[in-house]
């Protein structure tokens, strides 16, 4: 026994032997070096590849295209940014922001009960099934889902068929006759674009809201009840304020994803442009990179404002 123990001890490498051992010794003694090594790749990626190229793009918005030659003139000017406020361009911004706001509101309303149920009531297998069902649509191609919606909403699609079969054709026609949001069919109207957006971004709202609700201890809800708050008041005073960081995170996802998207409105909806499409056209076919850059600035500015407002409202106080 004693001899065996001696052998094991002798087999242990002496301190300081081997380059790997020296490296791990160094990293152990100097945690800052370890941290630096771990952070270097992501910092380089974020700093150079990501932020620098974003800055390079945004700087483009300070240049302008010569109206006669169509060539970019590299002289700082605010003319391109001012162009955003021309009626044609400003309409695009308003339309995109309006759609993003509507989609965010709809996703909030749809996601909250689902997230609440999953966080506060579901357990075990039901909870696993919940995650699976929420995540599953994210595993299939986004294009497939959008085209599927186009078919569902088309004039000959299942929604029209269902309306005819259940004698609610008048209701559908009435909806499509509403000015602005209506159109010849669901798949070529704002309603169609809205429904598709609401569907594709819903998981991005459910998951953060569910995570926030998960962190609210059940005893807080019991305590509010114990102090005399009926369920509705408990919800307003306790659950909602504590879920606010999750609501803010989810709405940032749905809002910014809608604001930057250029595929959904191209497939489902009318011919009116959204910011994403405007960027695509200006930097591609039109060769007006400065105006495209100016358009990309809009979502960034809006999200910055949104975050600032959410912070002012105390959405992150409970973090």
């Amino acid at each position, binding site marked *: 026994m004693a001899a065996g123990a001696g052998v094991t001890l002798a087999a242990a490498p002496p301190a300081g032997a081997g380059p790997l051992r020296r490296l791990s010794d160094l990293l152990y003694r100097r945690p800052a070096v370890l941290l630096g090594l771990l952070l270097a790749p992501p910092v380089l990626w974020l700093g150079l590849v990501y932020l620098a190229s974003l800055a390079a793009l945004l700087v483009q918005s300070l240049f302008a295209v010569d109206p006669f030659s169509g060539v970019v003139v590299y002289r700082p000017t605010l003319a391109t940014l001012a162009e955003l406020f021309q009626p044609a361009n400003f309409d695009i911004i308003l339309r995109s922001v309006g759609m993003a706001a509507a989609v965010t509101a709809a996703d909030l309303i749809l996601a909250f009960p689902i997230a609440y149920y999953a966080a506060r009531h579901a357990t075990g297998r039901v909870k696993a099934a919940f995650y699976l069902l929420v995540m599953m649509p994210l595993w299939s191609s986004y294009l497939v889902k959008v085209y599927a919606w186009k078919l569902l909403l088309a004039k000959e699609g299942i929604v029209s068929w269902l309306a005819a079969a259940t004698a609610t054709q008048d209701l559908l026609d009435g909806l499509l006759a509403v000015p602005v949001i209506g159109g010849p069919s669901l798949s070529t109207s704002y309603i169609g674009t809205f429904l598709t957006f609401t569907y594709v971004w819903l998981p991005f709202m459910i998951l953060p809201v569910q995570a926030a609700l998960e962190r609210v201890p059940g005893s807080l809800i*019991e305590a509010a009840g114990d102090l005399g708050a009926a369920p509705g008041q408990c919800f307003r005073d306790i659950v909602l304020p504590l879920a606010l960081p999750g609501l803010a995170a989810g709405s940032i996802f749905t809002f910014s994803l809608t604001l930057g998207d250029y595929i959904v409105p191209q497939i489902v909806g009318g011919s009116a442009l959204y910011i994403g499409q405007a960027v695509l056209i200006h930097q591609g076919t039109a060769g007006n990179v400065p105006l495209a850059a100016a358009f990309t600035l809009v979502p960034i500015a809006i999200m910055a404002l949104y975050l600032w407002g959410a912070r002012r409202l105390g959405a992150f106080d409970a973090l």
Partner: protein
Amino acid sequence: MAAAIRLAGVSCHFGAVRAVDAVDLEIAEGEFFAMLGPSGSGKTTCLRLIAGFEQPTAGTIEIFGEGVDGVPPYARAVNTVFQDYALFPHMRVLENVAYGLKVKGVARAARDAAARAALAQVALDGLEGRKPAALSGGQRQRVALARALVNRPRALLLDEPLGALDLKLREQMQVELKSLQRELGLTFVFVTHDQGEALSMADQVAVFDHGRLVQVGAPADIYERPANAFVADFVGGANLLVAAEAALLGAPEQPCSLRPEAIRLVSANDPYNQPRLVGRLVDLQYQGATRRLIVALDAPFERLVLTAALPARAAEGLAPGMVLTLTFARDALWPLGPA
């Protein structure tokens, strides 16, 4: 005295788990009532049934003479101090304490004044503007207490309120809670697994085991006249003797308990003290003012390992391995009922 809270045949089963099983209980108004038991004994579920967080599967609960079957927690005349305090993290201390009054529609000025008074009552004035996260455990406990008391409940339910505090603070809060209860004349229902806490604070103690109420009585009843082996052992610790052993010691043939502090040490040739037990000292534990002796007895008690608590002076000069002669007064053998 009128009954503040009455439980009649109350059961609460979760599937096959009988969390609370056929409990009959009466808590008098103005009483400090402790519900004592190990974890999983049903004491907390019993409290939650009174608060309304759980619904009984059988039986009825009355609070101040009114049946509360189906009455939600927010409509009951009781308030709870939670084990984890359950302070609202996004509200300041003052808002936390005033919340119950705000819900009842009391105007801001009045409810803030009441909340300040409640905070002063628990010696927390000056911390109104803090968030719960910026308080120590003891301070949070006091905020939870103030938040419940400010509503002037007719009975206060406390779920292991001192469990998370360190020993010193716990002892201090025991004294404060008791004097607060006496001052306000309120009914306190206090759940704890700490038998010392229950015995020192309560007027009445209810001992729970496996969802059943085993014994209810004044602390002295519980300690000196335990109903069965579980109570004898859980409350204060006891040597448990089987019927045959009790008979050999001259008691009726029935399981008995023998408190460690009832045992004395005598010299081997002392002719007067009876009964006498001889055994070998296995372990000697230092306990401050007393010494705890673990003694393995000789035949005919060879299956019995006795625990004795002796004053430090009486245990002087003892060492493990020594052969000791022990005795006790015959009436210290307390007959136990079935479990």
